[in-house]
């Protein structure tokens, strides 16, 4: 919240950061976070700020969330639960 995130009206676990051309979405479920940002620098900046607030491990590119596996491909993303 202090970083400028606004709680989404339509989804209680979604937080949106929007400043000029820079946008970031933060999805939070208990102790898991998915962070999406419009640029690498913004992403780094938010992660660093979050790490200052509490202990947090950066698991890099999204590959697993709530039992759903995410596989990046050249054409897009593959979602499965094998």
């Amino acid at each position: 919240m202090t970083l400028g995130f606004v709680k989404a009206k339509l989804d209680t676990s979604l937080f949106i950061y929007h400043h000029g051309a820079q946008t970031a979405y933060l999805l939070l479920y208990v102790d898991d976070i998915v962070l999406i940002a419009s640029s690498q620098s913004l992403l780094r900046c938010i992660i660093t700020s979050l790490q200052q607030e509490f202990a947090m491990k950066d698991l890099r590119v999204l590959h697993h969330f709530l039992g759903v596996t995410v596989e990046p491909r050249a054409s897009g993303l593959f979602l499965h639960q094998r």
Partner: protein
Amino acid sequence: MTNCKPYSTPVDTHGKLSEAEGHPVTDPTAYRSLVGALQYLTFTRPDITYAVQQICLHMHDPREPHQTALKRLLCYLRGTVNYRLLLQRSSSTELVVYTNTDWAGCPDTRRSTSGYAVFLGGNLVSWSSKRQPVVSRSSVEAEYRAVANGMAKASWLQQLLAELHSPLSRSTLIYCDNVSAVYLSTNPVQHQRTKHV
């Protein structure tokens, strides 16, 4: 179940299952826990949404034919474990909704079952299969309710996209396969058979 013969479809095409047919299963808890797991699986497997919805209807009192349907679904999954949901980068930002319904398909309640699939720029983002809460007295009424359900979801997605600061540039397209329901949607005339809808 790991050595079963894989089926190519999740459900058989003949009528829906009645709730009071056959003997109660010996282990209803196992049925419920399996169905619960399958419900979670529908997040990445839209193809089994309808099959899971049908099996879910009998959670409270699972019987032999329901268990057979469940096993059939598991056999289908056995043959299709490699199916994944693909989300592709897309230049178009357009919502397209497809809806369909049966009419009075449920043999016990005569309620209709309807479903929708919402595509955002060619990617499937939302889908549902649900038995309608009330009895429809004509197929038009059932289709019209399906369109309304699909539209409600599309409008929720429109608002979500607006909140994500990427509002839609084009209006949403919604398809249904009943000509009379299309007429009714474009011109909601009062008629003896539509006034209660």
